[in-house]
């Protein structure tokens, strides 16, 4: 069993910081963005960014997997 690469783990940590641990920083109403209270906008925005982070992590993993396959 292969453990996940450091790069992928770092990318995976970003959404946890942005959507969970930093709640005190973004849990406010103002400024409204696209008509949404800031906290609601922030979470919706980060759902999209999380997908991007995981796409990056996926590239990291498949790259290290390919390398592993080429080695005898």
């Amino acid at each position, binding site marked *: *069993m*292969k*453990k*996940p690469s450091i790069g*992928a*783990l770092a990318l*995976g940590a970003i*959404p*946890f910081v942005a*959507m*969970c*641990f930093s*709640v*005190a920083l973004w*849990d*406010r*109403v103002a400024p*409204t963005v*696209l*008509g*949404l*209270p800031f*906290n*609601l906008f922030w*979470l*919706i925005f*980060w*759902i*999209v960014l*999380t*997908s991007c*982070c*995981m*796409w990056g*992590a*996926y590239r990291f*993993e*498949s790259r290290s997997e390919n390398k592993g396959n080429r080695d005898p």
Partner: protein
Amino acid sequence: MSPAATALTLIVAIVAIGTAIGFLAGSRQRMDLEQWTVGGRGFGAGLVFLLMAGEVYTTFTFLGVSGWAYSRGAPVLYALAYPTLAYVASFFFLPQLWELGRQHRMQTQPDFFNVLYRNPYLSGLVCVVGILAFVPYIQLQLDGIGIIVSVASFGHIGRAAAMTVGTVLLVAFVVANGVRAVAWVSAVKDLLMLIAAIAIGFGIPLAYFGGIGAMFTALIQARPEHLVMPGSTPNLGHSWYMSTVLLTACGFYMWPHTFGATFTAKSADTLRRNAVVMPLYSLTLALMFFAGFAAVLILPHLQNGDLALLIVVRRTFPAWFLGVIGGAGALTAMVPAAILLLSAATLFAKNLYRPLLAPAMSDDGVARLARAMVVLLGALSLGLAIHGASTIVALLLTGYAMVAQCLPGVLLGLYWQRVTGTGVLIGLIVGVLTAVTLMSAHLDPIGGLNAGFVALCINFVATIAGSLATRASAGQVMPEAT
């Protein structure tokens, strides 16, 4: 026809057609809990996207999330964060789990504990925890049925009566071995729910305020405190948010059905790809927030927030639309309720009763016992649903507090050399007892933290301490040193 009659007729018709199609077409392919969870992956890419977007709307999200947006306010934002973070976590540990499952031919969650730890008491207790966690999950589906029928009948049919009829139908359906529904029956439901969610999420703010932005402007003026944590609650603040997000993100893949579904994935790569795409589906959940927040200004002073969405719909849209939404909502509650009942009963008979108490029992005997358990569990859930006053969200959180306690045994089993079955057993007992004690003593949240999360932390400590103090049993599978 009166509006109530129109709405109820449509609900009954949709449920009847849905189940009839299930009976007729489903005999070829049996649908179990795993298929329900990952259902409909055989369709084309465009349709799959629509179906997955529709699958987001469960009883929990449709009635529960909008209900908490109405009654609690900002703390409900946790529901937007935890599925996303659960997918992130899944990217890292599901491929490992899948690999282990492939090597040892695992199919179910008890299989995992059985193979890894070779401790029958541990896998038995995992079953018990799974069944206990399923009970509030079934209960919230029954609550949903009760709410739909009572709102659609304009209060003529009470919640208790509606839930009782719903449960009797469900149990009869399951005992008659009727849990057969091809993927496209739930596909019809998914599409209906997606259309309903869009109509509700955009239509209601538009009808009353002129748009979503205008609705929030009005709400910020009238009730700004509702929109930041702790919202309209005394104690659901930031530490509650963080601990709840972590607990539910951890518990997401610990449900017996989501765990089992991992083993049926085509490859480890499929699981990683899912983690990339899946967060996007929860975007449409925002529509339920719009509906719940709009209801704050449209219908102040509702006793039960879980009714908010349907009462606003009833007030805004024609009766036939309420009927269509009610019918789709009722299918959304009944299909999982039936499958959950059957899975909990099968888990009891096959993975708990037979291995521990009656090894000689035949497969027919197991099936009979499972059917008896369906009746018992249905009655238990109905009793709890009639007498309980919990909101739908609170019920699911109770289930999560239980089921997340399986996490230390899974994570440490995958990554830590020193973990032992006895250690995991001790941790699981301590964690479940802590969660049950805190919740039944109404100490949730405790010190601002989600009680299930506190129990999970204690569980981790107890598992590690117990593992260090004991030796691994013979035959335990160890993670490879890397």
